């Protein structure tokens, strides 16, 4: 599942050489302004790349719609997601086909599917983004430290990464969620606990190539501290790659959360799309209640796809060859 990657380092070689010439690491202000500048550079490059990429724009737009839905869901849902709806004659509306009152029908318990669907967007978004953020933060730090220091530090951290790679993802997540209790927080932590591994490996190899560049050597020569070189000089250059892996991590986290919920280990207090499918599957509703099954499945698919679209666009930032070619 690793995305293809060119040597993203080529991207800024010219700029780096320029940096090296004007380098004055003892000057706090200039270092800060350089950081801001490179931040801006990354920012404006992102804008440029998204400007002429339809897929990326579509991805952002879809994600925005989901975010707004999740944000305002409690205010605009037509029914309470857990409310048991009754028909005119007072009987529970079990597996009612879509109607004006219930645009996506009801579940076997008489609950409104559309309302559950809207509220469910929140879990995917929260888990997806928080777990990905945690994973990328861990991964970037591990990669930076490992690649920069080398030696036994590198050995130790890479063995830990190997171990993380040796754990089967879903089984490990299931066992841990089971032990920690099925709360949203433990699901996020458990996913992040394994998801950082790919970011760490990729960032490390990038850092290794940056370590050889003149700008790092000159920073060392003027006596900049290791921390400073790592976080002020190298980090901004590997940031685009971190963003790319951030996007992929969101996608994997959303799939992982949905899978956990589908297997019945989701947070019972939070309605999520995976949980909806779990309930529909256990109730054997895929045979006759498409309105209960199709919406959550398609929603998961579209959300993950939007993140992949964004990832494809970000990939052009890290791999300039793709930019010129397409």
């Amino acid at each position, binding site marked *: *599942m690793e995305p293809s990657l060119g040597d993203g380092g080529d991207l800024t070689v010219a700029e780096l050489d320029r940096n090296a010439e004007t380098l004055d690491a003892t000057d706090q202000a200039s270092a800060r302004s350089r950081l801001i500048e490179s931040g801006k550079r990354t920012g404006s490059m992102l804008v440029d790349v998204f400007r002429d990429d339809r897929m990326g724009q579509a991805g952002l737009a879809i994600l925005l719609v989901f975010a707004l839905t999740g944000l305002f869901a409690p205010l605009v849902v037509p029914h309470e997601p857990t409310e048991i709806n009754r028909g005119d004659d007072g009987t529970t509306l079990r597996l009612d086909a879509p109607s004006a009152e219930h645009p996506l029908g009801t579940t076997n318990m008489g609950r409104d599917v559309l309302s559950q669907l809207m509220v469910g967007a929140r879990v995917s978004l929260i888990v997806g983004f928080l777990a990905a953020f945690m994973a990328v933060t861990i991964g970037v730090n591990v990669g930076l430290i490992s690649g920069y220091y080398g030696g036994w530090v590198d050995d130790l951290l890479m063995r830990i990464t190997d171990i993380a790679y*040796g754990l*089967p993802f879903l*089984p490990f997540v*299931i066992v841990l969620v089971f032990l920690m209790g099925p709360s949203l927080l433990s699901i996020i932590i458990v996913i992040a606990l394994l998801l950082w591994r790919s970011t760490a490996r990729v960032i490390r190899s990038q850092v290794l190539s940056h370590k050889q560049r003149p700008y790092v050597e000159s920073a060392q020569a003027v006596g900049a501290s290791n921390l400073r070189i790592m976080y002020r000089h190298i980090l901004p250059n590997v940031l685009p790659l971190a963003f790319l892996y951030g996007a992929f991590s969101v996608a994997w986290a959303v*799939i992982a959360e*949905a899978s956990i919920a589908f297997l019945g280990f989701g947070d019972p207090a939070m309605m999520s799309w995976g949980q909806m*499918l779990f309930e529909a599957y256990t109730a054997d509703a895929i045979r006759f209640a498409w309105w209960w099954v199709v919406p959550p499945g398609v929603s*998961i*698919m579209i959300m993950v796809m939007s993140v992949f679209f964004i990832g494809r666009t970000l990939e052009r930032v890290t791999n300039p060859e793709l930019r010129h070619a397409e």
Partner: protein
Amino acid sequence: MGLREYIVRRIFQLLVTYWAFLTIIFVLFRVAPGDPTSMFVMDGLTGEQREREIARLGLDQPLHVQYVEYITQLLSGNFGTSFRYSEPVWDVLVVKFWNTILLMGTALIVAYILGITFGALLGWYRGKKVEKVGIVAGLVARSSPEFWTGIVLLSIFAFWLGWFPSGGMRSVGAEIGSFGERYFSADFVYHMVLPVLAGAIYYMATPLLLMRNTMMDILKADFIEVKKAEGLPERRILYRHAARNSILPIVTVAAIVSGTAIGGSLIIETVFNWPGMGREMIESVTYNDYPMAMGTFFLMGSVVIFMNFIADLAYVYLDPRVQYD
């Protein structure tokens, strides 16, 4: 560093990783969940019986003694007795292990054959409409969690068209004979079609997109131009020369993905009621069957670690340019 030295070093790393994995299992299943005795000691015993049982199982020993004992037991395949089946975990798992390997193995083979073929074509037809459609299809497949793909396949082919059974591994009343009869019967294959398809669709995306990317790089190479100038037919250049040189990265990824697919069996087997390791794991966790949960986790992790090792070896073996670092 030479090849031999690299391999020795890699084997050493393998042992370290595996030891860490066993330790994690010990911590997860023996130390973490409250009273460690709950794992081996059955409920419904009187206090005295319980203590005798604890002593018999060595649970009154200091933790480090238990640790050594525990790992020895794990490595000798002694996972204890399943609470649900009242049978040794190993006996139950041996059958389920093969059910899972056959299912996921077939799914992966199908996924890689299709992925490589279509990926090569997409790289070849670069910039054409076919390519766009292919990429979007690949992204859709990769964006659908396995359970969703499975549910869609079930709805269409089992419930709507009625072509395939909705789950299980064999028809009710089918005779279970020897190993060969069990797996090489038409009934078994018939039941396997939908779950294999669900897995293949999900795992196809990776080789498809990867193959396309490498193909694009290879097609830029000079020797392809030379072959074109020689006037070789396009099909021949595509498969004989370009595709062949693009396979390398796929092989490494294939080994890693087959490790991941072991985890995917949890979902596919649940959707299709396939009596394998994955479904067994879900059930054992749900029913608090600790020895069984531990046994499945141990087997799955072992497969993943082994496949990662194979991936590294395949990489250095296949690519003479690789640097050992």
